[in-house]
């Protein structure tokens, strides 16, 4: 997943959690980057018609930005679910974050052919636990056979 996709996914989740525009600070914190870096990328997203930035309020994604963010979130969900279901990684959230920049969406699509992802994806993603709600339930009872 490239840098732009990771930003869009993060803004989308921060925006959902705040139920309004996402603050630059929260975006930077979430991604572990400096506010200056976050501002630079937000400017690029604005110029590409993917986000709107209003001073003192924060960043809101456009409809196009939301579409791309949801695609990125779905890719992330595939990586998490693949790690859990196929490789039986218990700490799948941490490893998914480490690997997401190396796993492209086309690669995730192939991995998706062997996992059991639900149609409601990515709406079942819980930003607070950084995992799909359904996966958390499965994780609490151990990997499937």
């Amino acid at each position, binding site marked *: 997943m*490239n*840098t732009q996709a*990771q*930003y869009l996914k993060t803004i989308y989740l921060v925006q959902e959690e705040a139920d309004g525009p996402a603050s630059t600070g929260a975006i930077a914190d979430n*991604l572990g*980057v400096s506010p200056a*870096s976050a501002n*630079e*990328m937000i400017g690029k997203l604005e110029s590409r018609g993917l986000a709107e930035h209003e001073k003192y309020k924060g960043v809101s994604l456009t409809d196009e930005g939301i579409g791309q963010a949801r695609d990125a979130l779905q890719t992330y969900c595939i990586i998490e679910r*693949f790690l859990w279901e*196929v*490789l039986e*990684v218990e700490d799948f959230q941490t*490893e998914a974050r*480490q*690997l997401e*920049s*190396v*796993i*492209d969406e*086309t*690669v995730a*699509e*192939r*991995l998706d*052919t*062997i*996992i059991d992802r639900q149609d409601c994806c990515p709406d079942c993603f819980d930003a607070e636990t950084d995992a799909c709600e359904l996966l958390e339930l499965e994780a609490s009872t151990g990997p499937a056979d």
Partner: protein
Amino acid sequence: MSLTHPVASDHQLARLLQIGMVLEEVVEARAHKHHETLGEEVLDSDVVDLLEGAAQESAEHRRRLESLVDGLDADPVAYEEIETLVAARYESDTDFDGVLYDQLCNEETAYKFYDDLIAAIEGSDVEFSIDRDRLLAVLRGIRADERDGVEEVTAHMERRE
């Protein structure tokens, strides 16, 4: 500003190589499944050869990746397990063109995966338990095969047009 992280440990490298193994196993299992489901009445001999070649090549790539995973003291991913998962989700309505398209996706995806993985390793200064030159030589060799594979499938598709 880039959020691209270099491969930072033996553990992360092993995990990525395991993912490479799974991608190869998916190719191998799907090639067998296409052949088994559609048979030689639907698939012409060129495509049967293409599928057999792809399955053999993936098995060979899997073995090369497995030797790297072994050197990192991690477990390989059993082919039988992936074969079962592929069979469980295989779409039975795949047709002739679908097979070629699927094969093209396989080759392109694998190429992209190895290309990104090589870049991530090259961007890392971590000393792995396995020899870096050998690691990169194996991965570059596989990437070259995948690039050839994309060209081969594309040529098949063009001949059919």
